[in-house]
């Protein structure tokens, strides 16, 4: 094993030989070998050298950069970043799906609400399942001379939010812990004020609103009276509960709104009770039918048949009750009073002239939205960027490792 000094001596002899300096006598052969190796140096082809000179002078034309871009997009190069992005997308989609499912469950448990709806009070569910339920608590919003803004309608602070009814089912069934869907009976009333010569027109439009395909309601009753002094009318409308807010918004556009009220009553307990009665009656009928099949005497069979008739009646009543309760939740009553006032303003004129305060509010709102978008973009871009960076680092590490290995493999 040569010493470090011997190694350095031989290396110096190589450098001396390459530099044309004399080499120590015992290292002549090494010096000769060094020169021979230098003589074996491959020479560049002049044709290739000229082509390369041209490309360098031209700054390596775009075609070569395009091919380099294609190399970047090659499957091998994009493998790790591609896998990383796929995993991130899968995580984001799963999170979005889970979040939307959670929101739907919350929405179902609290009852459907539209975005511009009035904040509603929910009356506490009835203690006795056979009663008619708790009293409705109206959310009164009376404005004098101006249409009340949606945001001004707030629940009373003294009314606590009710707790959801206890879950039904049991015996360890998978549905035992599921909360029943809330059933809410909603109602609304509003007073519209129109100019005397507009009363009939507004009345006609009120009825047309209910008939619109997007509303899908019907008129329960209506009465209109017009005279020289003005006139008025009253309407009782029934609209699908899930379209109540849209109907109220449309009605509000017809004339000046001097008052508007909404109420909601939780009838989940009633619905649950009615359904339970129906289910119990059906179960009882099933049991009686089994007993009838096993009856051995005419007397016994007659007695069972009498009970079957009785339970059949109870089934019909329970079914009717259930349908009635369901209908109360599915449709909402809207009471509209129409009065006349020569000073009434056209709702299209309301809203006021555009003022600097409006512009400031709009600007602040835009800034809020922009900031929210920026935060979301950063929240998405940051982990994505980290994953891509990790992917690139992993690719480079793999390339370095591969280069080290190839020298030993070749």
């Amino acid at each position: 094993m040569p010493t470090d000094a011997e190694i350095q001596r031989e290396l110096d002899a190589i450098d001396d030989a390459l530099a044309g300096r004399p080499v120590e006598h015992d290292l002549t052969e090494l010096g000769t070998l060094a020169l021979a190796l230098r003589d074996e140096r491959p020479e560049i082809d002049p044709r290739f050298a000229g082509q390369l000179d041209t490309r360098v002078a031209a700054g390596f034309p775009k075609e070569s950069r395009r091919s380099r871009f294609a190399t970047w997009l090659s499957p091998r190069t994009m493998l790790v970043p591609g896998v990383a992005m796929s995993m991130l997308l899968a995580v984001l989609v799963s999170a979005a799906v889970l979040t939307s499912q959670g929101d739907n469950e919350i929405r179902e448990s609290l009852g459907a609400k539209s975005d511009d709806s009035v904040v509603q009070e929910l009356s506490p569910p009835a203690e006795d399942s056979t009663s008619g339920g708790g009293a409705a608590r109206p959310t009164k919003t009376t404005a004098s001379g101006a249409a009340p803004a949606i945001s001004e309608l707030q629940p009373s602070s003294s009314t606590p939010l009710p707790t959801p009814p206890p879950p039904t089912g049991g015996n360890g069934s998978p549905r035992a812990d599921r909360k029943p869907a809330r059933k809410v009976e909603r109602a609304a009333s509003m007073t519209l004020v129109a100019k005397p010569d507009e009363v009939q027109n507004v009345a006609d439009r009120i009825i047309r609103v209910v008939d619109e395909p997007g509303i899908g309601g019907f008129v329960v009753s209506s009465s209109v009276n017009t005279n020289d002094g003005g006139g008025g009318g009253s309407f009782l409308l029934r609209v699908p509960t899930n379209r109540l807010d849209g109907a109220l918004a449309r009605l509000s556009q017809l004339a000046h709104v001097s008052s508007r009220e909404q109420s909601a009553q939780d009838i989940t307990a009633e619905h649950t009770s009615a359904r339970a009665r129906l289910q119990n009656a059906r179960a009882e009928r099933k049991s009686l039918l089994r007993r009838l099949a096993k009856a051995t005497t005419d007397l016994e069979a007659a007695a069972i048949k009498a009970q079957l008739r009785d339970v059949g009646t109870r089934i019909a009543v329970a079914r009717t009750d259930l349908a009635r309760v369901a209908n109360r939740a599915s449709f909402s009553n809207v009471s509209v009073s129409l009065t006349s006032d020569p000073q009434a303003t056209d709702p299209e004129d309301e809203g006021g002239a555009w003022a600097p305060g409006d512009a400031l509010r709009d600007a602040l709102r835009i800034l809020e939205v922009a900031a929210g978008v920026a935060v979301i973009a950063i929240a998405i871009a940051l982990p994505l960027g980290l994953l891509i960076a990790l992917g690139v680092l992993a690719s480079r590490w793999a390339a370095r490792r591969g280069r080290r290995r190839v020298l030993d493999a070749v």
Partner: protein
Amino acid sequence: MTSTLTLPRTASKSAAELDFEALYRAARDDVFAYVATLLRDRAAAEDVTALAFERAYRKHRSFDARRGSARGWLFGIARNAALDELRRRKRQAALPFDPEDATTAQPEDVLETALRRTAVRAALADLPARDREVIALKFHAGLDAAELAEVLGVSRTNAGTLLHRAMTKLRGAIDAD
């Protein structure tokens, strides 16, 4: 080892672009010689040489002189390109025989020189790639000890040891023939 070819110059060059051109002129043939010896394939060596200079051109503005010499930086790029080529092709084609220059040697020396060159060439071709690379960097690219260490990513002492080891193997292969 410097190039004697003249590149067309463009006007208004910044200092960094001029440095790249100077580096290219000085190292073009050296890079080709190194790559050709390592790959033992002239066609592949031309491709890799062009690729190496293209990469160097793209990155030349980010070169930091505090991290090493320009030649060491350039040969590091060339080395990576050559190793990538080795990984991709895993060829072991031999270089075609270069004809002797018949005007410089006497007849009785021609045979001896040819035999020596053949023996050296054959022994070099049979060396493992790791040893062949060190010899190519030293004798064909003309790197000094510091540049050799920088390209290989080792200390100067280790670079000298690697070179000595490669030369020992080469001498053993030649003597065995």
